[in-house]
């Protein structure tokens, strides 16, 4: 599996993680190119369905990242998101979705280096896990 290039989708908030990743770029820090970023207004906006749709479209790993607690641009969006994730992770686990492929992080606009480090570690983990075959197989199944 050495030539396996994972598809990693990152759902990030506009105010912290996206700006943080921007800083990674302007600081000329290199990081794994397998990640595709999707910018949303707030982590509170990240519907759990987006995560499922990412896997449906062939993602091997998903990142969700936003402002640290207390730093939300909308005051409490990330607190609400955190509650949703606590429950949604349990549900994913319960229906047998591989939660080792779902990564959560708080990364602020000043943490460009943390973003690079985080993405690298995610890419490494997902490479080790290999392609998400079981989900791909179900997604590719025809209509009965």
């Amino acid at each position, binding site marked *: 599996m050495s030539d396996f290039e994972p598809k990693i989708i990152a759902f990030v908030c506009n105010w912290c993680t996206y700006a943080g990743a921007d800083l990674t770029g302007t600081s000329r820090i290199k990081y794994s190119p397998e990640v595709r970023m999707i910018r949303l207004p707030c982590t509170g906006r990240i519907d*759990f*369905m987006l995560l*499922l*749709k990412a896997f*449906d479209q062939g993602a091997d790993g998903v990142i969700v990242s936003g402002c640290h*607690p*207390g730093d939300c641009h909308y005051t*409490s969006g990330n*607190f*609400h998101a*955190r*509650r*949703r*994730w*606590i*429950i*949604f*992770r*349990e*549900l994913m*686990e*319960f*229906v*047998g*979705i*591989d*939660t080792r492929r779902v*990564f*959560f*992080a*708080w990364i602020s606009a000043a943490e460009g280096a943390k973003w690079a480090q*985080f993405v690298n570690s995610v890419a490494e983990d997902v490479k080790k896990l290999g392609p998400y075959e*079981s*989900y791909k197989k*179900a*997604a590719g*199944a025809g*209509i*009965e």
Partner: protein
Amino acid sequence: MEELRKKAAELLSSGTVKVVIGFAQGSGGKTRAAFAQTPDQAAKLICDERCVQNLAVYLSKSEVKSLGKIAVVAKVPVLRTILQLAAENQLKDGEIVVLGISPEGKLVELPDFKAIEDFLAKIPYELTPEQKAELEKLEKMSVEERWNYWQEQFAKCVKCYACRAACPLCYCESCLTQCNQPQWIPVAPHQVGNMEWHIVRAMHLTGRCIGCGDCERACPVGIPLSLLNRKLAEEVFKNFKTRAGVAAKEEYALGTFKPEDKENFIK
């Protein structure tokens, strides 16, 4: 249940209510929901251990609401649903007449939400040993085994949405399944689409499901749907210490937060 019939007939003849939602004899030895609008019809109401449907599902239906003021025969799950509907601003105190039925089958006077809360506080809100065992059986499986188990179950789904129709808390007039731009849930029964639908249903009922099990009873292909709801209800209780349908004024578990909520899974 002479007491219930008498009370229902009284409510109807005095004009206090226009319709009493209860149970009547159906076909094949089964019972069905009945809508008594006259004292004569009220005389045919029955209430025994065969009557398991959660009648609260009719409280939000416009066809029933248009009949006038409602009285509902309410066993414990119905009472919990009424409180949950009240917490979600779907019912006002005094809007309906509640004909409470205790677990022993006795008619109970429940004039307001406060009385329902006090009555329910005395009834244990826990999983039965069988329900616990079912959950534990799945929890003990490996992730792969669980995936295979649920894929097999979801493959049976024909997208009839009977689970949604039977659920008293699935009262949205326009559902996510009707949204086709983007198409969140594929219309045809498809392996992943089926799973997505059941995940959405479970998530949208998180912290709201009172565990009546009507979704599972309504399912024509026998998917153990209430397992998903029960699992999430237990997780909500474990993490946030709240349960659905215990108070008429209760914050929705996912509509609020605590600064100290756990985040050991977030880097």
